[in-house]
Every structure is written in structure tokens, then in C-alpha cells.
């Protein structure tokens, strides 16, 4: 976290642009010298860079996030307002992605050679869809065309469907590819062959034996995937006008609002670390070998 905060601090200091301008009506402000000076002082930007750095670290360590340069409210408030919406979006998208991936995997395993080809092609196409394009196509079809769902977030469940699908389809495709590979590998192992020899059917083999193997790498990937959903949120929240961390980050970067940028990155880093632990725990639960290995 210290590394993340430091990297962001350095990056924000290096990119061109002056955060004072953000507070004075955007870059290219024509405010007077006195105004610029007063604002610089208010934001503490008149101090040397190294002092700013340590005071920022100190504030973070003590849980004092400071105020947003641009919005003039505490950073904790900015993050607090945005975090729940992004969390709902990311969790829903992750669940939906898993549902998509599992469905594809089961279909592939039951559908034989041809089924596997079709589902793996579907998975591959889904995995390569860019969020931006996908989001707009979904709007064109389901909001403008069919009129089933609102084009922009309406605060309710219906408004959540298209943003979640936009994030879940590519991720689900990606997870499905991993699972399909896992199933294929497992089917080639000795235990699978012997199970088949005992007369186990395709479905039983998948359910009792190979799926467990296939799911393992996908579980490990999911903690990483949840992190990337935060990146995807930048696009999805803009297209569907949802409140959230992604949009907060986007506008903070545009305005060089350093306290907000640092806070979003640190929060994201914490989420990554927590998800990493959860991913490990889940993998251990799915894979008994790991449990025994550590209990010994």
C-alpha cells in the first residue's frame, strides 16, 4: 500500500497540469495572481514536494484522507459515496460472469466435440469484446430497440442489468476459456480415464471429477478479475451514468485532484489484497490437496 501510494504520488506530480486550476474553474484558468496564491495556500501546494509527500503519507497512516482539491469535501466522503455503487456493480458482475462461465463449461462437457468447439468459440468472442462497444450495443438493442431496459442507470434493479452484462460477458468468456482448458486437462488424466472405464457417464464425470479441477484456476483468476472490474467500471459507469469509483477516478485524474487519486488507488489496492486472501481460501476449499498439504 505504501508502494502504491508512493507510485501514485510520483505519477501525479509528474504529469503536466496544475491542480490549483481544477479549483479555479478548470485548466486554463485566468484567475489573478492573488487568487492562484490564495488557492495554492489553501490546498497546501505552496510547500515543497517532499513535505507534501510525507504529510500525505502521515495523513493516510492516521486515516486522515484530507479534502478533495476540486470538490472541497473530505476525500473519505467522496469515496464513501461512490464505493457502494461500484461494489454492487463488481460483485453482481463477478457472479454473473461465473454463471456464464459455468453454463458454457457444462454445455461444452455435455455437448461432446462439437459442443466444445461452439462454446469455446463463444467464450473467445465474449472475452475479446471491449466494454465500451459492448455497452453501447446493449443499449442500442435492449433500450433503444426493444425498450425492455433503461439506457441509463435509474437507481433500481432494471438499471443494473445492462452495466452488469457489459462487465460480465467478457469476463465470463475469459473464465469459461480457463475452465474449458481445465476440463480438457483433467479428462486426459489417468483418474478420468479410469472413471470412464468404470462406466461413468459424461455428466457424472464432469460433476464428480473434472469440474473441480477446471474451477480451480478460475477461482484463482477471480480475485484478479474482480480487481480489473474496477478498471472496467470507469467505462461502464460513464456509459450508463452510474455513480461510482470509476467515474470518481476519471474526473480526479482529469483535474489532477491528487488526494482523490491516491485514495482511489489505495482503496483498490486494499480490495486486491483482501480478494487475494479470499481467493486463496476459496481455492483451498475447492482443492482438498491444498488443505492436507498445509495441515501437515
Amino acid at each position, binding site marked *: 500500500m505504501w508502494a502504491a501510494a508512493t507510485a501514485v504520488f510520483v505519477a501525479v506530480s509528474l*504529469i*503536466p*497540469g*496544475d491542480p*490549483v*486550476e*481544477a*479549483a*479555479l*474553474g*478548470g*485548466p*486554463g*484558468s*485566468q*484567475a*489573478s*495572481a*492573488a*487568487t*492562484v*496564491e*490564495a488557492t495554492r495556500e489553501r490546498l497546501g501546494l505552496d510547500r515543497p514536494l517532499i513535505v507534501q509527500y510525507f504529510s500525505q503519507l502521515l495523513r493516510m497512516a492516521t486515516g486522515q484522507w484530507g479534502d*478533495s482539491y*476540486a*470538490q*472541497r*469535501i473530505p476525500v473519505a466522503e*467522496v469515496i464513501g*459515496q*461512490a464505493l457502494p455503487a461500484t461494489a454492487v456493480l463488481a460483485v453482481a458482475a463477478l457472479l454473473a460472469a461465473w454463471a456464464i462461465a459455468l453454463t458454457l463449461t457444462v454445455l461444452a462437457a455435455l455437448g461432446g466435440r462439437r459442443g466444445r468447439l461452439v462454446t469455446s468459440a463463444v467464450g473467445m468472442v465474449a472475452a475479446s469484446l471491449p466494454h*465500451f*462497444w459492448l*455497452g*453501447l450495443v446493449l*443499449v*442500442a*438493442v435492449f*433500450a*433503444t*430497440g*426493444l*425498450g425492455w431496459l*433503461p*439506457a*441509463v442507470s*435509474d*437507481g433500481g434493479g432494471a438499471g443494473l442489468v445492462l452495466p452488469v452484462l457489459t462487465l460480465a460477458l467478457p469476463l465470463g468468456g475469459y473464465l469459461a476459456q480457463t475452465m474449458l482448458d481445465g476440463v480438457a486437462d483433467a479428462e486426459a488424466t489417468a483418474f478420468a480415464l479410469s472413471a470412464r472405464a468404470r462406466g461413468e457417464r459424461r455428466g457424472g464425470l464432469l460433476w464428480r471429477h473434472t469440474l473441480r479441477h477446471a474451477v480451480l484456476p478460475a477461482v484463482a483468476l477471480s480475485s484478479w478479475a474482480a480487481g480489473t472490474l474496477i478498471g472496467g467500471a470507469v*467505462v461502464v459507469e*460513464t*456509459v*450508463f*451514468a452510474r*455513480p461510482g469509483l470509476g*467515474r*470518481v477516478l*476519471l*474526473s480526479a485524474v*482529469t*483535474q489532477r485532484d491528487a488526494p482523490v487519486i491516491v485514495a482511489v488507488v489505495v482503496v483498490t489496492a486494499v480490495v486486491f489484497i483482501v480478494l487475494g486472501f479470499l481467493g486463496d481460501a476459496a481455492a483451498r476449499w475447492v482443492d482438498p490437496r491444498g488443505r492436507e498439504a498445509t495441515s501437515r
Partner: protein
Amino acid sequence: MIAHPRPRLLAAGALSLVAVLALSACSGSTVEPDASATPVDGGTLVYASGDAEPDCLDPHVGGNYPQALLATQVLEQLVSRDAEGTIVPWLAEGWELAEDGLSMDVTLKPGVSFTDGTPLDAEAVARNIAHLQDPDTGSSTGYLALERVERVEAVSDTVARFVLSEPDSALLESLAQPWLAIQSPAGLDRGTDENCLAPIGTGPFIIDDWVKQDHISLVRNDDYASAPADADHDGPAHLEGIIWRFLPDATTRYAALEAGDVDVIDNAQPDAVARAESDGGISDIDAPRPGSVNRLELNSGQAPFDDERVRQAFLAAVDVNPGIESLFAGTAARSYSPLSSAETAAYSDEAPFAVDVERAAELLDEAGWDEVGSDGVRSRDGQRLTLRLPVSTNQSIPAEVSLFEQIQAQAAEVGFEVTIDQLDLSSWYAALGANEYELVSAPYTKLGPDVLRILYHSDGIVPAPSGYFANHAQIDDPELDDVLDRASRSQDADERSELYTAAQRTILEGSYILPLYDQQNHFLVSDDVAGVRATDTVSTVWLGDAWLVG
């Protein structure tokens, strides 16, 4: 005001999606509301803005266009401007300039109160001007407009005297801008942080609640009694309230309008405007912003454009009309003036922009750029004829970027190498500040022809403390300076208009700019709403006369 940032991150792909949208759109109501129908009271209108959500709703702080859009519903100015360009009464019912031009007495409308109950008096006006001029407020746009105002004195309860350091022919135009709106002194006393969340004014609506990143809800001011002279009706608004939403993506914003989720959108893109016109059910309000047009400025401060012949060659080499017609789908008219068509003082001349590719080549030969490399790029003494064009993706919509690419291709025909660099707003200003450009498009919004002084007076080459300077063409012409100075001090309307015409002629004939079109500002309005119009001041939308049709 400098053209403000708009979120354009995702706009690039929107064009390619028009086809998909057109295929999937099978609805499209054709119900025509009866425009002469009697207004109906009640209901809530949903407005969707494509602009960035303001950080502060008090337009005194900073001062950009998104703030002005919202402030137009909530706050009011001393004066307004009507469609003929005449300054008309608003919170002020009259004004009188002293003979020496060094003071102006403004008489306030009697009996007006702010929505917190504080009466509007001359002290309140003085307090507002002081607030704008206080460095701690952080005003940029409003502050700049008050450059020549030394102070405001309350002569009586209803008469406020503006004391000037020198005559200012643009003062009334300045005061008509939303960035100089008059707010409740009690509201200002709460301090910037609190006032930013809900400034208190005299306008037709009151800020009720602001859910950041989502919406601002406005409720009707039931005691409203100070409509500007150019409003359609007096008294409280017809609408009970407004939900003011922020929908940054142009495609979904239009989809939401089409689906009936919202009633009015701003920042409508050319493809959406063209589609609304053909589909029906939605009407377009074409409200170009005042001040400058969108134009390419040729940096005459350094080589190669310090040579007038090279500037003339560039202008003769590029034909922008077909591109504007096709890329903007017929929604933007070509301009031949430095000033917006919203300005009655605008002077046009097509002659300096006649296209003549052969003449362009001759001019470049004459100017010494006569060595042509294997890639077709000219050079002189080993210097390539390169023109750097930094483009702000916040300000140039995709159609404009495409137009620049066409210009790039046309200029290449005669041996210019135009390099287009798409940058985010901060990096773009940094490039301008470092003088790393030969061409740039930087529209500027301000009420009245005095914008010419900001943009083309040699004082504008000196950077502001932020590093910003407004004279991107870097015109340094003492005669032009003198004309602009005299115009800004002139007490005589005819003389003023003659001087501004002369100034525009100098700018056009000097080949410093390539005017393209007005600063595009289209609002799309659902036919379920009537009485919506754009103001004739800074072309923000005015919802004080709007109502929902049955």
C-alpha cells in the same frame, strides 16, 4: 470564459454506433404538441447534461459553462440581453452611466427577495461584487469581467453605484453573464464550502438536494417575481421541479431522451441532431455560444507562421466546407467571422479564405520553403514545414477531430506536414503554455464583442499566473491594440461598433485565423415539453417558462 471541459472519453466510438442505433430504432412518436396551447402547471422535468458535473454550484467560484447551465435556473443577473442584442432589465430596472464613463448607477427592481428571505438591496449587490473580487473566492471568469470595477457603493437601498478605474463599454454585457449572478449575502456568509453545495438566489427554482455523481433536484420558487424582460411570462415557473442529471456519454444520453427517461439533453452531437430531425418527436434548439467562433488560430509568434505568406498559403490550401457539411451532417454553418453569429457585432468576409492550391504553392516558394522532400514535405534550410496541432479531446468533438484530419490531408498536398496530437485538457494547456503549437482550436465564450480584446490584444500574449494566455494567434499589432482599447472605452454605440468592425477586418485580412463554425451548442427537447428556449446571453437553457404537455 474558456470553452470548458466536456467528458469526451468515450465519444470516439459513438459515430460508428449510429448505424447500429438507426437499425435498432423502430419507435419514434410523431405527436406534434400544439405550441400555442395554454401552459399547464405542475410536473417535474428531467434534464440530462453531458457536461462534467460541477464541483461547486456557485458560479462565482471558478466560473465555467456547466455552472452557468445550472445557475440559469436558480440565480439571476442584474441585466439580460434580448435576441436583438439589446441589454434589457432583470434584477435591475434601470441604469445610468456618468458622463465621464467612470461610474454607473444601477437601480434595482423593488420588492425582490432571495429565496432565504433576505431582501435584494444595493448592499447585496456590493457584497456580491466584493465576493467575486476576493482572491479567496477563487473566481476566474467573473473576476476577469470586473477588471475595471474598483468597487460598488450603495447610494440608497435600491441604487448601487459601480465605480470604475476606466470606462468599460462591456460592463453591462459582463453583468448579464451567469458568472456574475447576484446571490443572497446570507448565503455567501456561510462560506465557500457550504455555498458551493446550494447557492441561494432569486431565480425560478431553488436547489433542494445534490446527490453527487447522480443528480441535483430543484424545486419551484413559489414567490418568484423577478423574471427578466425577455421572459415569456411573469411569476412562478410552471414546473414543480427539475431533476438535473449528468449523463456523460453522448450515445446513452440520446438513447435516454428517445426512451422518454429524460425530457431535455444538452451537448447533442451532430449525428443525434440529424437523427432527431428525421425521426420527429424531438426538436433541436440550435443556440451557438456568444463570443468567439470555433476557429483554427495560426501562431504568428514563431516560424513558419511569423511569415504572412506562409499563413496565406495555409489558408489557400485548405477547403473546409465539404468537411463541415458532411461531418456535421448539415447541423453547423460555415463561419467567416472571428465572432459568433450570436453577436450582432460580428463581421464576416469570405475573401481571405478563398481556396487556391496553386497560389498556395507559389506563396510557399516565395517564402523560401521551396525544397520538397521525397515524402512531399517542404523544407527551408533543412527545417521541415511542420505544423503542430495539439487537440484537446475535451473540447474537440469527434466530428471536429475528423475535420482536422481532412485539413491535415489537404495541407499535405501543398507540402505542409500537420501533426495532430490528441491530449487531455491539462496536457493540452501545458503544450500551449510551452508554445509547442503552430495551429490550435481554442473557442472562448464571453458576452459581447469585447472578447476580441481578450483574444487578439497583445496583452493576451502575456501568460496569466496559471500559464494560460488567450491570444493564441499571438497577434502583436500596436494599431489593432489601439482600436481594441478605444472600442472598450467608447461611450458611443456607433463608434464602438465601427471600431470592432475595423478590428475584425484586421484579424481576417491578416490571415491569423481560419474560422470554422459557431461554438456548437445544441439542446434536444422532447415534444412532451413546451416553452423551452435558450437565453440570448450565454445560450444556456431557460426552464423558467417551460411546461409539460398533457
